[in-house]
């Protein structure tokens, strides 16, 4: 259970309040208009944005003051998810050994993760020699291998075409989602949320709402969601 306890995120004249709990075993989408603070909330959970007030807890443990690398979470950003000068296998291997001294056993696990995401035999290449979709798969392989209980996706697939994006979301759903893991994804596209998310957190008007089940939310959208979608309910 990830809890945001009376959280206040503040920067200049931007402010976002969040007081909510996200259950493990779910895929949760953060949606809302741009500038509402979806990515900032994710950054706060990952440890890149210090909250002005409140706490962030995971299973009762206070994460608020932990540096990003010590948190129980993996994160994928919009871009720069791979180091371009390291091979794909080294990039994935960073999940196991941040100092990159990989044993034979580690190398075998890296290979297994690459096979798992459909990149068998491509470990020796540099990211620049991969297609956009393959780069996303490599980043996912690293998240898979890191095996952290919370996975944060800050629109890492937004540069891919719509078909490829859905393919990646399905891969996340198939490989990463599980009974013991919480996946939180930021998206500006409601179709993404409807496609894979169990729950939706609506971020708008300076507030992150409590999670609502996806089907329920879209069946009966609140006013802010209607504004955001730009059309009345059918």
């Amino acid at each position, binding site marked *: 259970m990830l809890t945001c306890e009376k959280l206040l995120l503040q*920067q200049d004249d*931007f402010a976002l309040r969040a007081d909510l709990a996200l259950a493990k075993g779910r895929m949760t989408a953060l949606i809302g208009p741009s500038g509402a*603070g979806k*990515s*900032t909330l994710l*950054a706060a959970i*990952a*440890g*890149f*944005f*210090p909250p002005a007030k409140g706490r962030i807890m995971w299973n009762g443990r206070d994460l608020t003051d932990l*540096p*990003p*690398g*010590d948190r129980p979470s*993996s*994160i994928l*950003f919009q871009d*720069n*998810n791979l*180091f*371009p*000068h*390291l091979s794909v296998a080294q990039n994935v291997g*960073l*999940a196991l050994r*941040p*100092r*990159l001294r990989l044993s034979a056993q580690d190398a075998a696990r890296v290979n297994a993760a690459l096979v798992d995401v459909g990149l068998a035999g491509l470990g020796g290449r*540099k990211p*620049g020699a991969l297609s956009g979709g393959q780069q996303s798969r490599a980043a996912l392989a690293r998240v898979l291998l890191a095996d952290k209980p919370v996975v944060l996706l800050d629109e890492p697939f937004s540069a891919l075409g719509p078909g490829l994006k859905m393919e990646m979301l399905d891969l996340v759903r198939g490989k990463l989602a599980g009974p013991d893991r919480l996946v939180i994804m930021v998206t500006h596209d409601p179709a993404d949320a409807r496609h894979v998310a169990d729950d939706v957190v609506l971020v708008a008007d300076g507030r992150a709402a409590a999670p609502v089940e996806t089907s329920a939310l879209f069946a009966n959208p609140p006013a802010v969601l209607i504004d955001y979608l730009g059309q009345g309910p059918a």
Partner: protein
Amino acid sequence: MAQRPVALTPRWPGALSGALVLVLTLGTLAAVGWRAEWGGGLSPADWSAIRFTVTQAFVSAGLSVIFAIPVARALARRRFFGRKVLITLLGAPFLLPVIVAIFGLLAVFGRSGLINDVLGLLGIPPVSIYGFHGVVLAHVFFNLPLATRLILQGWLSIPAERFRLAATLNAPVGRLLEWPMLRAVVPGVFLVIFLICLTSFAVALTLGGGPRATTVELAIYQALRFDFDLGRAALLACVQFGLCAVAAVVAWRVTGPAAMGAGLDRSVQRWDRASAVVDALAITLAALFLVLPLSMIVLKGLPGLADLPPSIWHAAARSIAVAVVSAALCSVLALALALWGGPVIAVVGVLPLAASGLVVGTGAFLLVYPFINPARLALVVTALVNATLALPFVLRAIAPAVADVQADFGRLGAALGLRGWAWVRIVVLPRVRRPLGFGTGIAAALSMGDLGVIALFAGQSQETLPLAMFRLMGAFRMETAAAAALVLVTLTFVIFWICDKGARRDADL
């Protein structure tokens, strides 16, 4: 959404490096100020040294800029065979050991040089290269190329669309586009060169001298080496620091941070009719002015190469050792400071520009003299001071690259728990190795050619190659000096090339 920058490396390496630079610049300055004999004031000879220093720097900078403008304009608007080579060659004098360049200039403009040979054939009495005009000539040789590159950058920064627009309006390009650019660029270029000429010791040492052509730095050297008048040397060092500090502050305010020569290999397409003769003349004269002395070094050096005395090879070995140590130290300092980042590096990275080698050297001399014979520390102090003086250049080469790495990959590194040395080794070093190699090469080349601190400290046994060459020239053993010059210039460019190219090897980023 802007986010908190994540600190992936501890601060102590940067703080330590900054402290070392401060000790070597301000610390030595304090030593100088403490030992200076203020009571006596400045003698008429000191005042004339100050006047000479400022005047020659002013004239050198002025002439460099005035001659550079037509050359830069010609390079900006012409495409010709060898243009790229010429532009690369314009970068060479910066790395060229000063003493070697002076040797080349003597071979062209000296008593028995090419020019006087021609004048002799015409029955005109020979001209002398020594004194005010010799110092200015050498300074223009070093700084005309620099000025040309900087002004060329200004020309190429005028967007091509502006020239197109001016052409459709039939407007005068000169008044509309070029004059405003020059007005923005030239004062900064002038000041940078003025500052360089204020602190160039080796030129005055070889071509100046005597009551009418002594710079402040030369006076420091003479007070220390010949009169052993520490109080006067310290006082003059304070004067020199004052001059440089004023010039550096003014230069910094006028120029701001400049980019390092990127994208000089294009020329702007233009529609105005410019005189091809003027351009060709400017380019030919500039190329001759550069190439003639350089070729003379090779021509004169080759014959004596086979029977160089072993002492020269020993001096060469010492020079290589000093250059390697100095370059390594300089790169480590620069990397530590760049990783620390922030406004501190702006200050620490600029301070050495105001501190001339001779001032730092005098301070170091005063500090070690009570405890140990300075000659025994000559090489160590030379390596340290050279590293400090090269720091601004290396820092300017790598700091933007390091900042880019932090901005692009800092969050990813933090999310993966990459910290400290692992972050530097796995991410930073591989990603900045090109500018780092370039910067290290510059530091090595500058140290290789240094003839400043070493002249203050060295006895007979710790000669570096530039000092050995200087002493050979003083003894009029010109053939040996020529061969030594060839060895020195070759070593300098090889060591730069190894650093620069080595860092580019299969760097697929």
